[in-house]
């Protein structure tokens, strides 16, 4: 793009800024709107709610940032979350039936969750890399598979966590540390780890390289397939972490759990300035993206000026506008 390059050069700086601050600007604007809409928005209660809620999508989106940066996509995260929660509950209930409900059971559940997450991620990664099937299709397939499996396990209904176990597990979602709810802390931890991994390690750099040009990466002795599979496994683990803090919230899972989370996660990633075509990812942007999405929902609940029916419209517009703030920035990535 020669002449584009010319302009490109100046653009770059310009857009890089926009890409960096864009999401934050959007967040701040939303924040102000929130305040205008309803005083209650600023109440600590409400703000903690927003943070805590955003941690599900947020943690998943951190994983998605890796997948997308490396040029992939994962549509299965939502149903994966449902599937993992379902299995966790079944496992913990079976244990609870055999032994005294205790911390051990919860740990067993957590362990199982991480195991399942990595496995599910590996399946996606393996099919994409070794099976050479487009990620979109692989994960579209597994999306349907996981969801129907959980419906099957739940026998069409809802899987409820054993009361005893629940009481032990409950604090993981509801308690907090110096006023900061555990989910938020976990989210923060995941984000920081993600940031370091993506920006400070060889693995992260290889993700960028693969996303930007797979062949060049392969020629530079980068283990393309391994790295790509790893990003999916990472995504799976993030999903499992999200479920670990999700299950104690309502102590239940069903075929409905996590519907459309995949789209929310991807939206969060893109709003955050990551390039969908791969080669450029931003963890902090993703975090902000997740906050934005949660905040939209929250604000809509705090007002009744807009008909409920129009929530989707408002969300849609905000998402598009938020990305519009970074317009052009992804263009030259072609």
């Amino acid at each position, binding site marked *: 793009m020669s002449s584009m390059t010319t302009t490109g050069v100046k653009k770059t700086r310009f857009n890089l800024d926009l890409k960096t601050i864009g999401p934050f600007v959007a967040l701040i604007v939303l924040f102000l709107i929130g305040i205008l809409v309803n005083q209650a928005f600023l109440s600590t209660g409400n703000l903690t709610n927003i943070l805590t*809620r955003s941690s599900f999508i947020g943690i998943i989106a951190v994983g998605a940032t890796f997948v997308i940066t490396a040029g992939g996509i994962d549509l299965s995260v939502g149903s994966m979350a449902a599937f993992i929660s379902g299995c966790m509950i079944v496992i913990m209930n079976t244990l609870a039936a055999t032994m005294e409900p205790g911390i051990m059971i919860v740990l067993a559940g957590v362990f199982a969750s991480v195991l399942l997450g990595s496995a599910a991620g590996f399946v996606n990664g393996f099919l994409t890399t070794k099976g050479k099937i487009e990620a979109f299709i692989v994960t579209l397939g597994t999306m349907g598979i996981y969801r129907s499996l959980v419906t099957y396990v739940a026998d069409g209904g809802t899987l409820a966590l054993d009361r005893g176990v629940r009481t032990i597990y409950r604090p993981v979602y509801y308690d907090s540390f110096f006023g900061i709810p555990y989910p938020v802390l976990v989210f923060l931890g995941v984000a920081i780890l993600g940031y370091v991994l993506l920006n400070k390690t060889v693995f992260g750099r290889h993700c960028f390289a693969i996303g930007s040009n797979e062949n060049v990466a392969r020629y530079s002795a980068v283990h393309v397939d391994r790295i790509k599979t790893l990003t999916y496994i990472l995504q799976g683990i993030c999903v499992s972490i999200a479920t670990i803090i999700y299950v104690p919230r309502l102590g239940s899972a*069903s075929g409905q759990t996590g519907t459309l989370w995949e789209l929310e996660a991807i939206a969060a990633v893109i709003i955050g300035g990551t390039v969908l075509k791969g080669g450029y990812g931003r963890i902090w942007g993703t975090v902000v993206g997740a906050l934005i999405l949660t905040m939209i929902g929250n604000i809509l609940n705090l007002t009744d000026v807009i008909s409920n029916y129009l929530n989707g419209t408002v969300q849609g517009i905000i998402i598009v506008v938020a990305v519009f703030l970074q317009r052009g920035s992804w263009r030259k990535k072609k």
Partner: protein
Amino acid sequence: EKFTIGVSIPTATHGWTGGVNYHAKETKKRLETTYPDLKIVLVTAADPTAQANDLEDLVSVHKIDALVILPTDGGPLTDPIRQVKESGALITVVDRALTDDTIQDIYVAGNNPELGAVSAKYIKKALGGKGDIVVLRGMPIVIDEERFDAFMEGIEGSEINVLDHKHANWNRDDGFTVMQDFLARFPKIDAVWAQDDDIALGVIEAVKQAGREEEMFIVGGAGMKDIIKRVMDGDRLTPVDVLYPPSMISTAMEITALKAVTGAPLKGTYIVGSPLITQENAKDYYFPKSPF
């Protein structure tokens, strides 16, 4: 010579339909053992289009002699069901009315407006005709409309003030989230009409988290075992529940099977009411084994 009944129901997209699926499966097993020369084909569909497809398949492939259908949406399916009728099959419609009621031979009617009305009546009484409430609605479809309108009608004239109503899509997570925000927004809430037990469960958690259990009570709907258990145990947060039994599908299947096999002259409408479940009568509605 076998007699085939096609049963078409919505996919388990939330707790209640989950219950429908469960009861349909159970009843299928039971009926097929009791009536050896009876064959039941069970199909589920996510939306009217898919359900119309299913109906076509039941006729063209399974050559059904009778259809038991819980329409995902009465309006759009009226016509496809008429076609099944024209193929000579006996038609049993469950829960949701068609736009043309001459099609069905048997109608096992759930009563959505009644659910709304009963809830309204109770809340009015419990609050002494005066107070601030919030409403969590289901998915934006006809059923939700009917329930909601009936409810608003029910509280009309009283001094009960609906602070706001939002859609919680018959989903626990949404129930939890929406209620969290209601709690953040309204310092005083006397009662919550959650309309559905899945939503109610979410609401309960949100209220507990906010530590405002003493302030309000919650009225759900459908008769999910967890909620009924709470009612039985006299939980003050959920003093009552309003029945809207997914088991109505079983009733419909049984009637149809009976007519099919014995040729008994069964016709007309069987209304499954929406009685109020209180601590007193709760045990009659408690089925621990059901997933719902």
